[in-house]
């Protein structure tokens, strides 16, 4: 009897274990079978190596929160699919006064937030007032010429400027300028579950930002999305994202190593290199020797084999650049030599502090395999010219602090924008009064500052003329060294690939029905 009850207990435990494993097996198998139909799925799961810190546009600068904001938030204007022009968003039209100091934005009729509440010009004004007054807002520079906004009617807003800002409609297309309800915009806790006005609305967000579920917003003014639910999941490991994609547990894997794409394609998946409005660079502090010497900076630039970097890391799929601007922006001008030329580098080094060799430390962020690989190639490339690059691995937070404190000589990093606005780029990249000291370099050029100020108020050919002059000065002074375009690699299942794209402005676009 005792034996028998023991047997029964053992069998029961084994049966329970078997049923659990069978359930696990069943669910995994179900998930692993891709749908054969070409119709869009009901849900797309996007895995990203980032957690959403905040959906408050004033409290983030990361790609993933911007992706979510772009899907759930409405902006006055939007970027066209090819990123070349500005199109209506919440605003159906906009006009500038002849002197460029007053802009009138007219909202679409019948706009509603995702809770059904009407969206009016009052909400737009409140949102901009809040952003302009928040000193911690990293994008506060976008409002530097703003004087005030006036609500002319529920659908009409006037924006008065102290100086012309022709790029205003373009700037307002950025995902961090989404419009929130007037009564909530200043409330910090509102952003844990924000009401929105884009094609999607937030259904849930985990406390640590590891999972965000968006569902189609029935109150959206435009066409409904073809995929009604989008889930963003935090999956830190690159390899795990690839495995989950292959198992069809996720349908989009972001921020992959470019070398993963070949493997994906051989497994019947889709791999994409999406170029962004940004570029990888070696940021340099020009304040101290030897990098205060322009010839040393140029010698480093000449001795970097950008084509090799592109070949090894991106299998030739990226673009080596010798330009202040990335190749994805119209202002791109490849006027800095990009050919690997050690002889020219050695010639430049004559008479400099590095004439007989020198060692320069370069801070490289840990956890970014592409930057790690790039740093190794750069150090090997530059060595024959007599300059030893000492790679200092630091984490992102340490590098951020060191850059702000000018506690570095060289740092590998990238600069990118959400919208291809050349003025925003110049503010960050070469303006010594732009807030981050010409991309932390300490580079000060009064002529460049004056040209940026002129370009800010100009448009069309005049603006292009100023920017061309800035490009030329940049190539001559080379305060830091551009390398290649900033490119994001992602993998998709074949079923979702026709419906999900990563646009040049680094945000996901879900096709409409």
């Amino acid at each position, binding site marked *: 009897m005792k034996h028998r009850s023991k047997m029964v207990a053992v069998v029961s435990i084994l049966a329970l274990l078997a049923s659990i*494993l069978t359930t696990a097996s069943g669910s995994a198998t179900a998930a692993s079978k891709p749908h054969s139909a070409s119709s869009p799925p009901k849900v797309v799961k996007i895995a990203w190596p980032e957690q959403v810190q905040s959906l408050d546009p004033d409290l983030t600068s990361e790609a993933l929160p911007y992706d979510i904001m772009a899907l759930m938030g409405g902006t006055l204007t939007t970027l066209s699919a090819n990123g070349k022009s500005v199109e209506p968003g919440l605003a159906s039209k906009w006009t500038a006064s002849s002197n460029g100091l007053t802009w009138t934005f007219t909202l679409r009729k019948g706009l509603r937030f995702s809770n059904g509440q009407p969206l009016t010009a009052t909400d737009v004004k409140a949102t901009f007032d809040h952003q302009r007054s928040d000193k911690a807002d990293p994008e506060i520079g976008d409002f530097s010429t703003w004087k005030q906004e006036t609500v002319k009617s529920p659908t009409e807003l006037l924006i008065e400027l102290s100086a012309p800002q022709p790029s205003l409609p373009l700037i307002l297309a950025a995902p961090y300028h989404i419009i929130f309800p007037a009564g909530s915009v200043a409330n910090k806790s509102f952003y844990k579950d924000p009401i929105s006005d884009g094609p999607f609305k937030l259904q849930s967000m985990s406390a640590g930002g590891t999972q965000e579920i968006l569902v189609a917003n029935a109150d959206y003014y435009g066409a409904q999305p073809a995929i009604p639910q989008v889930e963003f999941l935090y999956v*830190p490991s690159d390899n795990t994202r690839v495995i989950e994609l292959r198992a069809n547990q996720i349908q989009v894997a972001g921020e992959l190593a470019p070398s993963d794409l070949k493997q994906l394609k051989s497994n019947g998946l889709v791999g994409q290199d999406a170029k962004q409005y940004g570029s990888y660079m070696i940021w340099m502090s020009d304040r101290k020797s030897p990098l205060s010497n322009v010839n040393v900076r140029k010698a480093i630039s000449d001795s970097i084999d950008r084509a090799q970097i592109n070949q090894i890391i991106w299998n030739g799929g990226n673009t080596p650049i010798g330009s202040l601007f990335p190749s994805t922006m119209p202002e791109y001008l490849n006027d800095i030599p990009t050919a690997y030329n050690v002889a020219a580098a050695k010639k430049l080094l004559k008479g400099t502090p590095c004439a007989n060799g020198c060692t320069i430390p370069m801070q490289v962020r840990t956890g970014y395999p592409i930057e790690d690989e790039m740093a190794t190639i750069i150090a090997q490339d530059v060595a024959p010219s007599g300059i030893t690059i000492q790679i200092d691995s630091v984490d992102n937070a340490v590098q951020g602090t060191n850059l702000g404190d000018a506690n570095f000589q060289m740092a590998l990093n990238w600069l990118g924008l959400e919208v291809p606005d050349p003025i925003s780029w110049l503010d960050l990249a070469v303006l010594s009064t732009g807030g981050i000291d010409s991309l932390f370099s300490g580079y000060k050029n009064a002529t460049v500052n004056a040209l940026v100020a002129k370009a800010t108020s100009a448009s069309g050919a005049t603006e292009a003329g100023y920017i061309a002059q800035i490009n030329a000065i940049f190539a001559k002074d080379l305060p830091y060294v551009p390398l290649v375009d900033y490119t994001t690699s992602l993998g998709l299942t074949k079923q979702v690939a026709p419906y999900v794209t990563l646009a040049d402005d680094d945000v996901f676009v879900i096709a409409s029905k």
Partner: protein
Amino acid sequence: MEGPRAPEASGLVKRSGYSTEPELGGVSTGPSASGSKRDRSAVHWLLRRLLQVPIVTACVLLIVFILLRVVPGNPAVTLLGVHATPSAVAALRHEMNLNVPLPDQLWLFVRNAATGNLGNSLVYNVPSTALIIPALGTTLMLTSGSVIIALFIGVPLGLLAGFTRSVAIDTSIRGIAVTFLAIPAFLIGFVLLLVAALKFHLAPAGGWGSTFLGDIQYVWLPAAALAAYLVPVVIRAVRQSTKQTLELEFIEATIARGVSTARLAVRHVLPNSLLPLIALIGMNVGGLLGGAVVIEAIFNLPGVGTVLVTAVNNRDFPVIQGTTVVVAVLVILVNLGADLLSFVIDPRIRDAE
């Protein structure tokens, strides 16, 4: 007929000198002078160990607090990005109360922690406990799962290696143990993901469920990966202990009575071999939690390791401090529990104390 093991069959009884008391069950048979003296020493021992908990926790807390302030990097920069202007960073630092003098910050943290308030996450603006507690559940499930798997695999193999007279079997088992010990956890994790999850669909390829049963579907594979660290330790301990037990006189007497090998192993050798495992597992909890950080990242589990790594990357001081304190207390308590259990059921330890 099955029956309780006779006291004379226990090698422990003979060795520890408690020849008149059946001590192996851990219960004293009656009051005696030596018994009450032993009880008093047990209470002293317990009090001493309990007193260590707040002292060690306070030391951990202080060290973490100081280290965090020494290491460069601040949460305002990580939130706003490197392109944020210094004035924006300064404004956010002010909002986050990071400009408060350090002694005041420390006092505030200690005062709040004493009441169970570990502060609000600087990044997510939610109580740190809202991030740590659910994650702790995941990590506990992962580590306890790995202990169960390690025992399930390690004990039979250790017994077999201890029992066998075949050099080939013993060497093979020890070879497997050494190999597992040498392979990094992340590699085992990826191999399991590729083979068990992707190839044979035995488990989901990472992620986490939303119910207890659902969680088990997800946890067993990472638990198996984490167990790879503990299995060799268990094998070696059980093998060693088995060999020692087999050398004892009562075993020879039991064999002479014609007891089968299986019965000898299960009824007489195994209980003695399992005793050292309690302390061993207690000591390895810290290592398991360290391994869990890697395994959680590979299998995408929302555990304490994930919370801690993210908090460190973001310089989210309250969450780092809170997680460290919680993990430290957990390790101390598990060690204390293991010691207590060993103390209760192993008369040799009581005697030593």
